[in-house]
């Protein structure tokens, strides 16, 4: 069904992986709209969701352009099934309590802030331009989630316990952030994509510093879940898509 022009296939995949991460996490955060623990936080999470969906849009547009099959950003977002999504498993995990949402956000932002900063030097002009913009936003997202994590971890016994439980639960999804497969290897060699392993020291440093301040314990690196980037997802993604894609599936091409 999705035939992709062979020459550009890795680039299309790379754009889709980045776009799907941003869109799925953005959708997750949007679920908090009207439900966050306080008004300021409601607005903050909605703002971050908007930034993420905004990052996804030019990436989808670029993927569609490279693919050259007449699809556009909307078709890529609304008309692909779960097995065609390429996001990491971390971003599709349910919101849980507020601690789970903050920990998920922190683990992702701690990776993406340096990721975008370095991708701004990509040999691919479009990735570089998108990254230059996303970098500033990611820096805000990282600071926001780190401040909350410190507040929760170093807060009451209840908030500490919940933050630690969230960390223990989500840790197994962090390994996938640092994977690079054959699709990406070629792009890394061409200076288009980033080798995620180069981000490891900075991610470790950020995580250790913030967890230290939050008086939380870094979980050991045990079994790591993986598969999202090649389309093997948890059951959660299907529910997200059912919610997000309903309108376009029921009324194809609907606009307002």
């Amino acid at each position, binding site marked *: 069904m999705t035939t992709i022009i062979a020459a550009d296939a890795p680039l299309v995949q790379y754009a889709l992986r980045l776009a799907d991460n941003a869109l799925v996490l*953005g959708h997750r955060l949007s679920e908090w709209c009207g439900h966050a623990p306080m008004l*300021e936080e409601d*607005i*903050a999470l*909605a*703002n*971050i*969701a*908007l*930034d*993420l*969906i*905004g*990052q996804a*849009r*030019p990436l989808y547009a670029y993927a569609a352009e490279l693919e050259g099959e007449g699809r556009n950003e909307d078709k890529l977002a609304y008309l692909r099934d779960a097995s065609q999504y390429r996001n990491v498993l971390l971003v599709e995990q349910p919101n849980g309590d507020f601690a789970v949402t903050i920990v998920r956000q922190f683990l992702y932002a701690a990776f993406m802030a340096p990721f975008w900063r370095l991708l701004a030097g990509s040999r691919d*002009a*479009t990735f*570089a*331009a*998108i990254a*230059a*913009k*996303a970098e*500033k*936003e990611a*820096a*805000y997202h990282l*600071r*926001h989630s780190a401040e909350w994590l410190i507040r929760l971890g170093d807060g009451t016994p209840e908030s500490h316990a919940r933050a630690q439980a969230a960390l223990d639960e989500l840790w197994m999804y962090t390994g996938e952030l640092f994977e690079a497969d054959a699709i990406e290897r070629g792009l890394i060699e061409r200076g288009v994509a980033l080798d995620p392993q180069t981000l490891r020291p900075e991610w470790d440093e950020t995580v250790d510093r913030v967890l230290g301040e939050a008086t939380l314990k870094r979980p050991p690196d045990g079994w790591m879940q993986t598969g999202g980037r090649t389309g093997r997802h948890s059951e959660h993604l299907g529910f997200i898509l059912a919610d997000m894609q309903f309108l376009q599936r029921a009324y194809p091409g609907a606009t307002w």
Partner: protein
Amino acid sequence: MVDPEVPVLTIEDLGVLRGVGVAEDGAVEVAITPTYSGCPAMNVIALEVELALERAGIAKGRVRTVLSPAWTTDWMSDEGRRKLKEYGIAPPAPKATRRALFGLEAIACPRCGSEDTEKITEFGSTACKALWRCRSCREPFDHFKCI
């Protein structure tokens, strides 16, 4: 043409307007760039530019979105900063440094000028603004974030 969210600024003041030119096919092309990736005002701005072209009697016109170089608050004109302050929004620092990005530099109250101010929340009424409060005159105010 004014910004739909900060109506005292034109898109030129804001630095969103990157240029107007005639494309190879003879169409009048207006280049705009987004402030924040997800800024919902961009669609409205693009639509209004198209309407303005039509009102001006230009049969063949279109809007082109450019991503590079990325917009930062440095693209905002001095005139834009002055208008913002008069409107009651603390303008972004003149240089988008990392300290300014994280609000580590003093933000002056747009009402009384006091630098004895504090941040209430990083994410304000729109993607581009944070909510601050002045300890001197007690007024809350929007700060156009520095990116």
